[in-house]
């Protein structure tokens, strides 16, 4: 077999009217067939593991799958990755494990569908777990130490699960009313069903991790109070403040940050309004600015809410688009329009303060800038006005200052993110670690998990060495 075993998907005509998962995932036969494509490279040529930010033994879990040892396969996966059914769905595998796959590098074949296999094994394991219902009771008395984790997103959940496995008492403080961070409020159901997120969170809890929601650290409890009770603190609060364009008319009704739009839709389930209480504007003609995964999620959500047209505008070209290729292709299949080299410069509205159109300027690409991407340059007198009643700004996030303001001794970098060691996550304050988007700026779920994993190790070493001194 030359190429990946294809995965069944909901047909575009159907799926653009619902929030159910687009890709169905492999059945056992398909998974075994795909696993068979893995060359089981010898150590010297073993590439995929280097592409995985948490270093999953990919060869191992695929080998066990190939031989039909699903339980063993899942065990291998779980020993590296606490949330595999999430990673199997949302990781940009093309840039990570699959991008490094020997088979893919041959040029003649597609890489092994590692993500889909991970998803298959993890989903199988979740079902087993549900049937087993084993509740591990962890005693708080006999622990190696107490660790507080701020934020229940991918990095926080990972650091917590790893430390719990090592014998620590871990408590996660989460500001929202549900755990998961971006997995819950950001990534839509049609890419990552919330039921799966909550089941994975339940797994983390089953390790003995406590999660307290409705706690804004720095407000509901202070840093000093946390320090008194815990031996170490991990900060994984993410890059949660939306960036706006700062163009005229951006406060008109019908203009959303992607964060607000997606929070309403995902966390508050506004797509079920009025059965749930949180409303969201349903646009007839929707414009989304940006071309990252968030822009894809926002545009495809707007379409599912009932928009007639959805147009994504981006100031660079298709080539520079940061979104995952698969999600971009899904969006195109569903009928999302893309306007490249187009940049919004004004939102126009009516006397009631409602958005009526987005005025854009056409761009051309100049020389590469510091990020290595070609710099977009406005073309004078080339304007295009797009009629719109909904405009979603998806141009990225900044660090959320609520916690940082309450923690002035914490050193920040010039972008306002926490300065932390890229390997260990150590910050400028003793006993405090940080990882994920609050350190790197908006990145990927798996990178946040990788940071959580490394910090867990470092925290263990720190607390163990401290205990040894007494």
């Amino acid at each position: 077999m030359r190429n990946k075993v294809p995965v069944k998907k909901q047909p575009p005509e159907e799926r653009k009217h619902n929030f159910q998962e687009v890709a169905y995932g492999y059945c056992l036969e398909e998974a075994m067939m795909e696993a068979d494509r893995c060359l089981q490279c010898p150590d010297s040529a073993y590439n995929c593991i280097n592409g995985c930010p948490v270093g999953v033994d990919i060869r191992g879990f695929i080998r066990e799958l190939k031989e039909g040892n699903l339980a063993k396969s899942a065990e291998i996966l779980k020993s590296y990755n606490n949330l595999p059914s999430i990673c199997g769905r949302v990781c940009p595998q093309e840039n990570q494990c699959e991008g490094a796959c020997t088979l893919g590098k041959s040029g003649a074949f597609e890489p092994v569908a590692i993500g889909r296999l991970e998803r298959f094994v993890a989903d199988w394991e979740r079902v087993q777990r549900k049937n087993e219902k084993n509740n591990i009771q962890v005693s708080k008395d006999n622990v190696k130490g107490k660790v507080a984790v701020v934020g229940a997103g991918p990095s926080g959940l990972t650091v917590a699960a790893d430390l719990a496995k090592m014998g620590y008492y871990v408590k996660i403080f989460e500001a929202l009313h549900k755990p998961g961070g971006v997995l819950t409020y950001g990534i839509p159901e049609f890419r990552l069903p919330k039921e799966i997120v909550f089941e994975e969170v339940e797994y983390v809890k089953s390790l003995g991790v406590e999660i307290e929601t409705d706690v804004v650290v720095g407000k509901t409890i202070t840093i000093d109070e946390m320090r008194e009770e815990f031996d170490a603190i991990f900060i994984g609060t993410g890059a949660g403040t939306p960036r706006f364009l700062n163009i005229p008319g951006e406060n008109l009704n019908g203009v959303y940050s992607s964060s607000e739009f997606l929070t309403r839709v995902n966390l508050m389930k506004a797509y079920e309004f009025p059965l749930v209480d949180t409303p969201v504007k349903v646009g007839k003609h929707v414009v989304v600015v940006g071309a990252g995964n968030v822009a894809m999620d926002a545009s495809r959500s707007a379409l599912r809410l009932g928009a007639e047209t959805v147009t994504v505008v981006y100031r660079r070209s298709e080539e520079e688009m940061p979104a995952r290729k698969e999600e971009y292709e899904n969006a195109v299949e569903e009928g999302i329009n893309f306007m490249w080299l187009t940049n919004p410069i004004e939102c126009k509205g009516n006397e009631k303060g409602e958005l009526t159109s987005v005025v854009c300027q056409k761009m051309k690409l100049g020389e590469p800038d510091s990020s290595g991407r070609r710099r977009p340059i406005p073309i004078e007198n080339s304007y295009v006005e797009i009629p719109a009643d909904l405009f979603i700004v998806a141009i990225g996030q900044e660090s959320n200052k609520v916690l940082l303001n309450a923690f002035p001794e914490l050193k920040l970098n010039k972008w306002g993110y926490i300065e932390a060691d890229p390997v260990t996550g150590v910050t400028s304050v003793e006993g405090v670690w940080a990882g994920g988007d609050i350190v790197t700026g908006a990145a990927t779920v798996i990178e946040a998990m990788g940071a959580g994993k490394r910090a867990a190790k470092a925290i263990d070493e720190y607390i163990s060495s401290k205990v040894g001194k007494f």
Partner: protein
Amino acid sequence: MFEISEKKKLAQDVYSVWVEAPKIAAHAQPGQFVIVIAEEDGERIPLTIVDKTEDKIRLIFQVVGKSTTKMSTFENGDSFAHVVGPLGNPSEIDYYGTVLLIGGGIGVAPILPILKALKEKGNRVITIMGARTADLLILEDEFTQLSDKLIVTTDDGSKGMKGLVTDGMKKVVSDGEKIDKAWAIGPVIMMKFATKTAQELGFPIIVSLNPIMVDGTGMCGGCRVTVGDSVKFACVDGPEFEGELVEWDELLKRLGQYKVEEKESLEEKKEKNVQKRF
């Protein structure tokens, strides 16, 4: 947690509840608010913390739509699903001299903690309480007790001075009071005109803005307002701002964003109740 006690009806459609929330009570300061989710999967709504004890906070709300209707049916011993806070920046409490506090309608409730704190700092405090009619006035006893001077205004003259809070403001000044600082909290339109009047009368005024909020922690920008030359998020940069810098008309329009949906939501609720009954 978040158990309700001492529920009291203060006026038509206005309720006061004490909610068990020790962590919030331990840290709340005047001017801060909480986000409440009444029932699981309900919406998140902001409410000012009106008072606190060691482990409880007091909230006062007016029934204006689906969520507040639901909240009004909760009795002592029931619990809210979620309460998070204290959120926002505290009021800047200091010794100013003579301070004028202006509360309109339900807006007198968030004035109460500010009044208490200002008194503790030794300020002379004059309060204006405005309501449409006498029976909509709330917290009169508390305000009478705490204020150095209290002026009640009603639109129809059914109690106190006939007229608006802005008429009360003018009267205070014409009575010879020199105002060093003022706060106005209430409907946007009232805060807008209170600001205008304060500017005419020549004293600085702080307002507490009430835009639509979702998370209340600065991660969505739904509550953004234009203040001076910049866009601020009321939940983390406010909710209090200098009145003269606020773009009032924009705020008014943004508050009307979900009128259609709010109506639809209420009607849906009525339908559900009908279904339940049969």
